[in-house]
């Protein structure tokens, strides 16, 4: 699991970090992004480039986003 904690980073650094990490993903690797809001434009980039994601809101300003390029990893099975 590649951890990206971007809660304290100002826009657009979290997006750039997540996309850079996404481009380097291999095999069953998964990115766990922790962010203070749901990065909706990021999801469009992931989906258009063959990736998948799972986005979970844990608190008002706390989102966990799991991203992978693997076709086999079950993101729903990840224990949040």
């Amino acid at each position, binding site marked *: 699991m590649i951890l990206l904690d971007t809660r304290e980073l*100002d826009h657009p650094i979290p*997006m750039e970090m997540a996309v850079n990490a996404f481009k380097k993903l291999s095999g069953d690797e998964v990115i766990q992004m922790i962010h203070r809001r749901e990065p909706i434009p990021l999801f*469009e980039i992931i989906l258009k480039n063959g990736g998948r994601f799972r986005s979970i809101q844990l608190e008002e300003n706390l989102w966990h986003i799991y991203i992978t390029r*693997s*076709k086999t990893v079950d993101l729903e099975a990840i224990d949040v």
Partner: protein
Amino acid sequence: MYNGLSFEQAPPISAVMRFFLTVPIFGIMLTLLVGFHPDEILIASHPLSLASIHVMFLGVITMAMFGALFQMQSVLGGCSIPNAAGNAFLIHLFLSIGTLSLGSAFLFVSPPLFVVAAVFLGSSILYTAKLILPLLFRGSSHDTLRGMKIALICLAIVVLLGIVMASEYANETFGSLHEAIRTIHYSFGLIGWIAVLIIAVAFQVVEMFYVTAPYSSWCKRYGLLIIAVSLGLKAFWTLLSLPFVWMFDALIGALLIGFIATTMKRLLNRKRRVSDVSIWFWFFGIGLLFVSLSAYTIYSLSGIELFQPMALVAFALFALSIILGMIGKIVPFLIWFHLNAAGYMDTPIMSNIITHTRAKLLFVLFVSTALFTLVGSLYHPFLSIGAIMGSAMFALLLYNIFTALALYAHTVRFGVRFDCDTEIR
């Protein structure tokens, strides 16, 4: 589809960029008007003054805000604008023709051009409201979206009143309500459209871009609503010539002071002290809003005519400051986003799309423009220097946007696409 939201919703890059690219072109036209006619430009109701005001508020400010609306509605509203590229093309074309016609109508005192302007501006703005308002009412509930609804409704009122006044100018006869309509027209334009939209956008971007504490729930929920109700009551009072109409200005002024204080506090107490030119534009813009409110208060209390144009100039500069700061953030983001969404591996990083040096130079030129123009509103010879600075500033803005688009076009043509299956085992 995930969580009920569509992620195929970002409008095409052309839909937004055509508006931004036109902003500096109208800006340069405006500086030419100011530069060549510094003595007439600040005389209330002078044709040159009216032409400049409308080029500024339609060709520069509304043009930029329409671009931002196309982008923000799609992302925040959760539903995309239908046929965004085609609609943006038409709205932009009609807004451009309408602004040019209205500016020319005032300049050349041409009744037929007022009719042309009314047709094109009315079509463009009312069609935008008809296109976006239903999406805002249908989409997710969000404080910024609520503000966008109020702003668009106010803009529709502004243009309807504008059409009434354009018909008066075209017929060269003015009804008994002309002054009242004019007051409502500019009040809804300056406060209901421009200030409300900027405040609504601030609710979203100040916290997101600069990692600040969020605005209070009360402020987000009721602030803009109170402004809208105050504007409605002010219109009613003005039409019926009722006394104490100033109390609505005072209430709106107090809310704007509250916005200045609360925004300043958030920006000063932000968590990360990263040097970012866009935040300088926010600080400076908020300062200009304070100057505008102060000048208007002095004018209202003392009746010294000199402070009325100063209030208007400072307000326009406040809006321009926020717009320049936001364009500096949005343009690199859009280029980066669309290239990445299309899968280009060698997408440039955002800070290389408009370099920090050029962004800083734009800020320096804007500050010079603002200071010379504000002093020029009191002592006219400085207006020409402000206009020269403004020309340089808008030329640099045009260069920044143009080079960003050239970089986009170059990457699309020669860039290497991301292979979705290469690394997956």
